[in-house]
């Protein structure tokens, strides 16, 4: 009788190749996702050492980080961005890797495109030189971000020497009220356990509130696991997962589908599986949240006030809060709904999927963006954009005063033309509110698509429940 295992234990055991000569556990990687920013030095390393990319058929690439979301016919204004896109095209050609390039209608953000294509399936191991690879855990995969040296390692060996993550369970109880999304659930978790509360762990999301989520929302939740310090998040696959996958381009079909589903059904944590950490969050009392500071953990209910650093007993935390408020240009005790914004960004690997756009459109329908607000809607992929247009969502966005853009990472991270200016303030559906993340001196408030849309209309951070 074997000891009860978690999902991660099961995936781990199935992918353990053995030990390398140093005695390190080697984990086989089922899918290596790539983009233009963290791969070129890996390809260079391969060339310099005379090695070949081992499994082009288990590799897949897109251009997403540096690509402009309008005026994208080349050459781009940013010559370096152009060169990076070219380098990826050349590297993929030479190594026979499939790339959804600039002119491909399926191009988009890697963490949106890969699941959409059915490349992410339960039980797989998936890596990418990008911390938000944790997104794919939504399908019951062990998926984690890696550095460029590790990217090169996977290119050359299709394995990684890996230390098994510690197990952590985050149970989301109850049913959240209207206007509360998985983005709010994620922020609440980070606020509860801290931005390094999941360090060294893989977080398994459990509970009714998680089971009730659709795949897009589960992806948002797992996407944000890294913001709690966990390299991966995971949700047990179920009917919702299988339904999403069926008939996707790279999903199994025919007899293979039945075989796969049979194996996928086994991917639940056994009764009695032991977790080193366990956290319970009751979602029934949860409100829409917004960050007020410069870490994703510095957040509060949108209906609440900015906390006072002087109430914080720990000196280092107090200093950190003061620094954050100074950077953000905010005062303790101020109601969040009084915070005036300049820009709204709806998109990114966190909230750039069709369901996110539908949520925002629900709020925006028949309303207008406040006069002083610049508002960007950036679909996560070409196919998300196409679907949204089919549903007429683009018209709702445009009539409200939003710019309707081409897919890419856009304003999430200030390495393409979509940046905020110094001192400008955004309500953003992205994942990080670090200093300068959306542009030098830019100030970011992380929110859900509902809250972003409501804030666009109000011109200030706004409670979306008044608009639903």
């Amino acid at each position, binding site marked *: 009788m074997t000891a009860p295992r978690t999902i991660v234990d099961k995936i781990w055991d199935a992918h353990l190749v053995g030990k390398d000569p140093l005695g390190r556990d080697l984990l086989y990687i089922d899918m290596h996702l790539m983009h233009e920013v963290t791969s070129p030095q890996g390809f260079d390393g391969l060339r310099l050492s005379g090695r070949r990319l081992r499994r*082009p058929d288990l590799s897949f690439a897109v251009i997403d980080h540096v690509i402009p979301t309008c005026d994208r016919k080349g050459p781009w204004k940013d010559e370096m961005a152009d060169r990076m896109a070219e380098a990826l095209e050349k590297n993929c050609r030479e190594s026979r890797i499939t790339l959804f390039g600039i002119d491909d209608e399926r191009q988009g953000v890697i963490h949106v495109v890969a699941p959409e294509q059915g490349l992410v399936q339960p039980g797989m191991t998936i890596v990418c030189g990008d911390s938000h690879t944790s997104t794919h855990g939504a399908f019951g995969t062990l998926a984690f971000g890696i*550095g460029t040296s590790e990217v090169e390692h996977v290119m*050359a060996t299709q394995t990684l*020497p890996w230390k098994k993550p510690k197990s952590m369970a985050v149970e989301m109880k109850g049913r959240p009220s209207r206007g509360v999304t998985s983005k709010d659930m994620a922020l609440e978790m980070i606020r509860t356990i801290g931005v390094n509360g999941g*360090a060294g762990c893989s977080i398994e999301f459990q509970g009714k509130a998680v089971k009730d989520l659709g795949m897009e929302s589960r992806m948002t939740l797992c996407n944000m696991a890294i913001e709690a310090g966990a390299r991966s998040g995971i949700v047990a696959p179920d009917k919702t997962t299988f339904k999403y996958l069926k008939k996707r381009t790279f999903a199994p079909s025919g007899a293979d589908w039945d075989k796969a589903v049979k194996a996928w059904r086994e991917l639940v944590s056994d009764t009695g599986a032991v977790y080193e950490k366990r956290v319970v969050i009751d979602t029934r009392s949860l409100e829409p949240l917004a960050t007020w500071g410069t870490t994703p953990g510095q957040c509060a209910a949108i209906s609440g006030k900015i906390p006072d650093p002087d109430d914080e007993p720990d000196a280092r935390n107090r200093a950190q809060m003061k620094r954050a408020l100074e950077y953000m240009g905010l005062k303790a005790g101020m109601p969040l709904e009084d915070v005036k914004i300049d820009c709204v960004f709806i998109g990114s690997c966190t909230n750039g999927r069709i369901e996110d756009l539908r949520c925002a459109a629900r709020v925006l329908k028949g309303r207008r963006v406040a006069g002083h607000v610049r508002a960007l809607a950036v679909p996560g992929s070409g196919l998300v954009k196409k679907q949204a247009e089919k549903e007429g969502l683009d018209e709702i966005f445009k009539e409200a005063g939003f710019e309707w853009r081409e897919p890419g990472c856009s304003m999430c991270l200030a390495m393409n033309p979509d940046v905020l200016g110094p001192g400008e303030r955004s309500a953003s559906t992205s994942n990080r509110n670090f*200093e300068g993340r959306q542009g030098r001196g830019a100030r970011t408030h992380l929110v859900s698509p509902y809250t972003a849309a409501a804030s666009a209309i109000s011109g200030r951070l706004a409670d979306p429940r008044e608009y639903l």
Partner: protein
Amino acid sequence: MREPLKIITGRAIPLDRPDVDTDQIMPALHLLRLERSGFGQYAFELWRKDPDFILNDERYAGAPILLASRNFGCGSSREHAAWGIHDLGIKCIIAPSFADIFRANAGSNGMLAIDLPEEQCDILIKRHKERPEAELVVDLEKQKINLSGDGVELEFSVDPFTKDCLLNGLDSIDVTLGALPSIEAHEKKRPGYLPRVKK
């Protein structure tokens, strides 16, 4: 094969801020490069605009050790952050905790990331704030940090594989390729329904 890392001796820069993220260490704008080198000039770029920022203090110039606070290197997976810090001449970072990806990236670049209890980190930060000229001797083989001249020695733990790789300057890919037969054997038994992207 990289240069083995055995003993690191020198001054230590006390960077006393928690949750230092990789966007601070290496702003995204500077990731628009195809090389691994030349990132040092951009490390902590925005904070370095403040003349009082610790890295602008000449007394710490050339120090090989960075004393950091909890959750150092959180955020993005960009190895460019580790490349930038390495470019500054840092060989060892000591902190109460590190973000997982950053820790791995440090190791990949021949830098030793040491976790010490917060109280010990606080003692070190205080010592090197007050006495910038003070030195530390970090001995990886013995897993000890000597507070030079103070008669104090701290022990630290390190993952044995990381230690092996750093001490001997091993190329991790070469090591793994030593297990090629196991990799091939695994590939033969992978389920047929797993996705393959055929070109």
